[in-house]
């Protein structure tokens, strides 16, 4: 079986999540590789979430927010953009290709764009191959302990 990449998508409630719903109501067909997590604003996407997703086995992470000037919270998407650039640079230093993290502005009316972006990203990741970060990070022989709510993930300090 060919490699099927896993994508975690953080979509803002007001624009991109709604656009994904619109893609559904319009019965657009796209790759089943993305799993969407709803956040209120792309500005809520903590770089830690992205790192956690890669660590847990994601091959790519997609962040979707409102177009510049359209943010429901005025400027959360700009904050997301700032963090995205820093994070992408950092990921590159860690050996994670830039293409694995993508930020897209998708308005509530752009169901078509949800389909296009997810399809494109899936294709791109297929070419890149699996990231396998979760396997590499795992010390040989030890079993991975699942993150629990009671302990704060250690990546927070590194921010």
């Amino acid at each position, binding site marked *: 079986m060919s490699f099927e990449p896993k994508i975690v998508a953080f979509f803002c409630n007001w624009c991109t999540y709604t656009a994904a719903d619109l893609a559904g109501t319009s019965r657009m067909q*796209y790759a089943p590789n993305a799993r969407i997590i709803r956040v209120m604003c792309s500005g*809520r996407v903590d770089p830690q979430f992205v790192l956690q997703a890669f660590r847990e086995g994601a091959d790519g992470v997609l962040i979707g927010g409102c177009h510049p000037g359209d943010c429901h919270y005025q400027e959360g998407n700009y904050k997301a953009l700032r963090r995205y650039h820093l994070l992408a640079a950092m990921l590159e230093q860690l050996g994670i290709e830039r293409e694995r993290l993508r930020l897209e502005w998708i308005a509530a009316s752009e169901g078509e764009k949800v389909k296009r972006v997810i399809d494109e990203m899936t294709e791109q990741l297929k070419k890149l191959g699996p990231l396998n970060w979760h396997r590499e990070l795992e010390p040989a022989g030890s079993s991975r302990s699942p993150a629990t709510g009671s302990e704060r993930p250690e990546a927070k300090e590194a921010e």
Partner: protein
Amino acid sequence: MAEGAAGQERIGVYICHCGVNIAERIDVEQVAGFTSTLPGVVVARSYKFMCSDPGQELIKKDIREQGLNRVVVAACSPLLHERTFRRVLTEEGITPFYFQMANIREQDSWVHRDGGLATEKAKALVRAAVRRVSYHEPLEVREVPVNPDVLVVGGGIAGIEAALTLAEAGKRVYLVEREPSIGGHMAQLDKTFPTLDCSACILTPKMSDVGAHPNIELLTYSEVESIEGYVGNFKAKIRKKARKVTADCTGCSDCEDPCPITLPSEFDEGLRERKAIFRPFPQAVPNIYTISRKGVPACQASCPIHQNAYGYIALAAKGKFEEALDLILWDNPLPATLARVCHHPCEEDCSRRDVDQPLAIRQLKRLVTDTVGEWELPGPEAEREESVAVVGSGPAGLACAYDLRRKGYRVTVYEAEAEPGGRLSAIPAFRLPQEILEQEIARLEEIGIEIRRGSRVEVDKLLREHQAVFIAIGAPLEKLAIPGAELRGVIRGREFLASLRRGRPLEVGRSVIILGDDDRALDIARAAVRRGAKATLVSRLPQPKAASEEIEAVQEEGVRLETAVTPVRILGNGRVEGLECKTAGTEFVIEGETLIISAGGVPEAEAVAHLGLKLTAEGYLAADPLTLATDVAGVFAGGECVSGPLSVVEAMASGRKGAESIHRYLNGLDMYGARELEGPYASTIEVETSGVEQRPRQEGPRLPVAERKGFQEVQLPLEERAALEEAERCLKCAGCCDCRLCWTVCEPEAIDYTMEDELVEVEVGAVILATGYKTFDPRKIPQYGYGRYDNVLSGLEFERLVNSAGPTEGKVVLKDGSTPKRIAIIHCVGSRDERFNPYCSKICCMYSLKFAHLVKERTGAEVYNFYIDMRTFGKGYEEFYRRVRTEGVKLIRGLPGEIVQRDGKLHLIGENILLDEMYDLEVDMVILAVGLEPRADAEEIRRLFNISCSQDGWFLERHPKLAPVSTFTDGIFLAGACQGPKDIPDSVAQAGAAAAGALALIDAGQVKLEAYTAQIDASLCSGCRTCISLCPFGAIDFDEERRVAVVNAALCKGCGTCVAACPSGAATQAHFKDEQIMAEIEALLQEG
């Protein structure tokens, strides 16, 4: 702490089939079976319709019987049914936040074809929801009272209906309309389909109801500028644009008649003209006139004395010369002089320049003064006690004296020379006949300005007799600051000009060189030529500072111009032989017997010493540049003696500035405030010049060169007919020309030119947007010839044409006035066309059939409707279609590809797709059934109110079926065509629905605040303040005492940006905590 960690959760999971919507793609039983194995899950079931009553009952039963304390539903989008299921929990006494939804329909079964993969995805989504829900916490939902007032934006039929419904329900409504009257597009329509009710007859009673309703505050000619706050508590700033007419207006229309400005009537789609003071249509609500004034036009703004050129041109064009002159005299006591000698910066800035050439403004002023011939200056309205001395009677002194005298001051002008006029009296008669100047000065004396000729003065003596002094003694003394100036044959320009006036001109020999940069140098050169000399004018400037006409005239008369030249020294041995010059690095010599210097004058040392005032290093009088005050209290100085070389009109501006300062000084007013607009400035009016037809400027004739021997005036007036044609070239940049004739006839005294825009702040609980649409611009389809062919009309134009109150009183006629024999109506113009708008505009088929019926009824002409599909859904619509067919209207399926004009007839060429044959039909008139489009500024309005647009640009409703009048921003509702093309019944119905939505919100009395707010754990906060700068709502404050950041929950909107940025993990967002999202991530990616 989340209970998830303690492991006490009992979770129920429900997988919805959604009929077949989910179940046909996803193996729901497999998902349910998988889910039941997950930790914490007590029960997992699938059911046909979870949102149905039995579905909800299923959950309730399990809660009661199985002791569930968490619920997950995997079904459609949480945006649709999260509320439904939360309510189920509430009803069972569980906090509604112990619920999570997995979106396996919109984001899974509907978008993936492969059932196996869709099922796998569903499992992951459900697992993530189950994991997340165990970390959920109960949240506090705060409630705040709702402001019961409502803002309705847009006063078309939808806005009117919404406002009336709310007002009838006892709510206070602010109805904001951009145009001067409410009514919108419906007011423009003639009949309405399919009942053929007269549109105005059914609309205007509603409009009057709005105007009269005690609960509606109508804000017309107004726009919402900003809005802040949240559902239940919005604050809107509304700009009430200055109408310049107060509410005292009775709508009597007396003001229309004297107004000289006609502009295309927006209401009549440009088929008729309206005045600059207008109401869009007679039944306007409110029935108040509006003056459309866009600002100060370029001609007036660039004029140093802000002469209202636009105004006097407009009046002159209407033959109102007396009124035009009155307007000129408002700012200018020397109109006949300036009509001859002004260097006219107004023409340099004239907007017409962008089309062809500027208007001949100076010549039009000449037309006014020549035509009126004799006049008196306006005197003071009331006399005042204070007296002012003006020293010097040049343009600065006279302008100052005039302004002060009009304010009532007693003014005495002291002139050292025997003849008043200063530099004006030195202008040769071929440019300014002596009697013209004498008359102007006599008029000034007639209004009580005393001019003492041959009078030398001293400041301290003047101050004993007068309360203030204005010194404008000019700078006539040319500096001879060039080597060789001591040679014989070097003459000061001033002496030469004075000798001309005396009639005993100085000898200049056969060749003369004139050094100078302005109109004075030109005058000298022209005078020298008339004395038989060969003249060369040397100027440092690329072009002398003078009117273009004078530069042309001087060249016609044979003066050689050497511009952009630096004079180095005067050559000669005892007597002038030539001038050595430099230009662009090369040196050359101009030969001449005489050299006249007319540049860089200073005030006469003797006169200045007399006055006892301070001088600058350059030899000018020292005065404050803004107020012209000298260091002696009560003494002001202006004109060339302060500034150096000025043109006549610039000197007058300086005089007016002095008058303003003296007035302020004598009344103890602020000397510095509000003086920014005293000098020339750039107009802010943007003028659209594309499409303006070119028409050449009418230059005034000049005396033939052969006849210019003596001192006869060279510039001749324009003939009246040519002058009026010239006046018609004015682009009317500013709308209203500020001539104030309307003011003279307004009995209720309702006209107020000083009215400024006003900002009003209103507080409301809900907003209804009813901003409507615009029609498609058929110019975008050039092959239909709209705008090129006279008889190709848009739908709205035809509405006005066929309306009995319209430009033709309802007669359907061609441009030439004849009655059309054959008319074509083209459907779907700009609609259902991938190149323009892919959507159907919904109303065009019906209005096209209505037009067909009206044409038949009014003219009996043959009618052809060209259509793609006939869309006549709606009550009575199909019946109307049938009726029109029986009236003999011909229907052709297949739109024409193009329209061409041959021998004055329009030919429609295309294919009849039912007959499969080409047609070429000759008609007299074509009506384009243009579609509907979002307003040009819909995008800005959308951003202002923080709502979304659909792909086509129409405002986006919350749900296309279940919430068509709500938006994603709570408290903001949509009504009418701003949400998409709609006919009148639909708009009215939607307006009612929007009003009901607002009422439901208001009558609930309370609104729940955002629950997903941020909190900051003070024990973890390091006080770095990163979050404070990030918060767009100013919801985070710094507690100086505890050195920690604190969230104000009432202001927090719950975006979570601060949480993502908090480096110490002190900030958390309710319902979107790190551990909740982390759990979701982990569960989504878990394998197996």
